[in-house]
């Protein structure tokens, strides 16, 4: 690249190895507990590996599928609002044992999810949380100045609309059921599901109308 040329040997191409950063206390503790569970034959290395693989294979696509179905089937939507885990099971989705509640956006309410105490998130349904969801900045500001946080995500909620923040402090997890965008009548459920992203399911974003 012009202007940023370096002579070979001056700055050898180098991607830092993850080992270059010291492990945190909690990483060391997690490693140690894992090693002990294996050593005591409580779990096998393969079970440990498989569980991590399962957790990391979850994605927002499952949540998006639930939303698309709810938009096209009023009876399913009612069941989803009553019990997300049971509604997910109907579609062959294992949402895990922790109860998940769907909170519905309407023309008068915009919902957004946070966990101020730690980083509770519906992982079994929509995958691992983005790093910012776990940041102290998001966790503290989301309940203190949610409209400012939303605007940083490019989301403007009009003054007449209530911003309702859900702080998952305890035993429930949440997903946002967004409003179906206008002019999507011809969309099938697969096309509708593609509109529903992770950030929409958290509530920091909304889906634009097509008109």
């Amino acid at each position, binding site marked *: 690249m012009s202007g940023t040329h370096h002579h070979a040997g001056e700055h050898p191409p180098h991607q830092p190895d993850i080992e270059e950063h010291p492990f945190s206390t909690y990483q060391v503790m997690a490693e140690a507990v894992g090693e002990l569970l294996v050593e005591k034959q409580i779990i096998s290395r393969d079970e440990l590996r498989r569980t991590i693989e399962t957790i990391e294979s979850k994605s927002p696509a499952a949540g998006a599928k639930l939303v698309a179905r709810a938009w096209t089937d009023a009876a399913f939507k009612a069941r989803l609002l009553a019990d997300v885990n049971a509604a997910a099971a109907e579609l062959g989705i294992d949402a895990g044992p922790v109860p998940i509640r769907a909170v519905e956006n309407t023309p008068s309410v915009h919902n957004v999810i946070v966990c101020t105490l730690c980083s509770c998130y519906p992982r079994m349904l929509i995958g691992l949380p983005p790093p910012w969801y776990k940041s102290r900045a998001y966790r503290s500001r989301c309940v203190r100045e949610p*409209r400012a946080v939303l605007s940083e995500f490019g989301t403007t909620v009009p003054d007449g609309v209530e911003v309702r923040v859900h702080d998952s402090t*305890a035993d429930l997890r949440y997903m946002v059921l967004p409003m179906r965008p206008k002019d999507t009548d011809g969309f099938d459920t697969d096309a509708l599901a593609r509109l529903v992203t992770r950030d929409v399911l958290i509530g920091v974003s909304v889906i634009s109308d097509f008109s």
Partner: protein
Amino acid sequence: MSFPTLAVGETVIVRASFPPGHTRAPHYVRGRRGVVAGIAGQYPNPEELAYGRSGKPELPLYRVRFHQRDLWDDYRGSADDTVVVEVYANWLERSSEGRP
């Protein structure tokens, strides 16, 4: 341990208590008035679970809705804006008053 059995729509106050140890009641709602928005079921007491005990007896868990302006004196945003927090029954007292 005694605590009120609450219904949706009842006004409650979160105890303004600051005991040492693990709790799941965020500081920003302690001493604040809200309304029961939902009943989430019964769950093991996290203040016991955190120390390796059984968490029994289980506690009712409520979803309590607070108006932002009741939480933050200088809240900028709509007067309609709210936060819904899950609060265990042992942190809640029934309030006879309405919103302050």
